């Protein structure tokens, strides 16, 4: 009986979190998967893409899962900030600071392609900063609410 009572809150607490984490992992993994499928024919032009993206996806998902499992604590927001930071750094690195420069061999001649994605990178950085801001505000709100609860 005692064992049953202990198992129930554990299951109640963690099973929804596991399901939520699994769902979020699937939803997060899908864009990476489709992007990889799209990039695959051009893999030789982006040799750095696959290892970088795999590393980013792994780190991002670890923070995502950690965020889900630490929800209800201050660490949830810490992981949220970390996720936004990782996304920002990855975007800046992959987009080479906004200037993507490629050399594509076509019929014996090498063709240089340069795309200036500064505007898109600026928007991604802005989104990440908004995400960091949001997490910080949520963390402050969380701490102040907790403080009020303790005073009461």
């Amino acid at each position: 009986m005692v064992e049953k009572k202990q198992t129930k809150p554990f299951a109640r607490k963690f099973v929804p979190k596991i399901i939520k984490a699994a769902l979020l992992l699937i939803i997060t993994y899908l864009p990476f998967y489709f992007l990889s499928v799209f990039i695959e024919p051009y893999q030789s032009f982006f040799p750095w893409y696959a290892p970088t993206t795999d590393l980013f996806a792994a780190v991002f998902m670890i923070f995502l899962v950690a965020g889900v499992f630490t929800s209800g604590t201050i660490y949830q927001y810490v992981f949220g900030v970390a996720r936004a930071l990782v996304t920002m750094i990855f975007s800046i690195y992959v987009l080479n600071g906004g200037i993507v420069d490629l050399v594509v061999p076509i019929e014996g001649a090498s063709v240089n392609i340069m795309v200036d994605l500064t505007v898109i990178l600026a928007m991604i950085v802005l989104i990440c900063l908004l995400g960091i801001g949001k997490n910080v505000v949520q963390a402050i709100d969380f701490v102040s609410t907790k403080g009020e609860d303790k005073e009461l």
Partner: protein
Amino acid sequence: MRYAVRALGWATKILWILIIVFSVTSVYSAMNVRMSLGQPQAFVSSEFILISVPLFVNNAGLYDLSEINMTVAVMDYQQSVLSTSTTFVPLIPRGGNLETTHNVSMSLEDGTSKLLDYLFNDSVFILDMSLKLNFAHSVPFRVSTNMSVPWGAPLYNFSIGQVSYNFLNLTHQEAIIPVSFENHSPYFSVDGVMRVEIFNDNGELFGFSMSDLNVPSHSSYIGQTEIAVDVSRVTGGGEVHFYFETSAFSAGPVVIPYG
């Protein structure tokens, strides 16, 4: 505080959606832009060589293409710049087409020797091409390449054979000058008139003639020019001057000694 968090959350979501939609539609649009170059046309005069390249762009994408700037720099085999030409198109709206001609003009003002060099000797031009445009008014894009274009001389290996004389009458003879060359040019045929003037050792003009030429690309010409000359002025040696007036180029005099 809650409202601020909610507003930030919505702003983040909306911006992510905007970026994803823009990225996907941009890739789709870029894949629907068709660009092609037509058959180049060449024209050679005593002052310049003009190469016209038709350019076709079909923007079947979802975004405008603006500030299209095509630049071609032509260098000779010694890497010295012969010409730089630019074609600028302010805008190709989505769903629009563009048909224009990019003209590459090479000045030959610094001497006819360059023209003669290109007329008589095969060469290689190095083209440094770049195309810049603004995609959706927000994403600058540049593509550039370097390529070698072989130049085929229209009067390659131009030479004359032994000048011989046929008896006409007591005062005049017919000078026969064998002429041969190969038209290596892939761009134009040598069709027009060749004027031939024959000079003796004293530099006196003692006969001339006009011949029609019609030598297609990648074919040889072997012919002869007959000139009625004054017997009293024939010295057995001298110079032959050739002048060319064709649909593609004008050149002359090309001086070849004989005898």
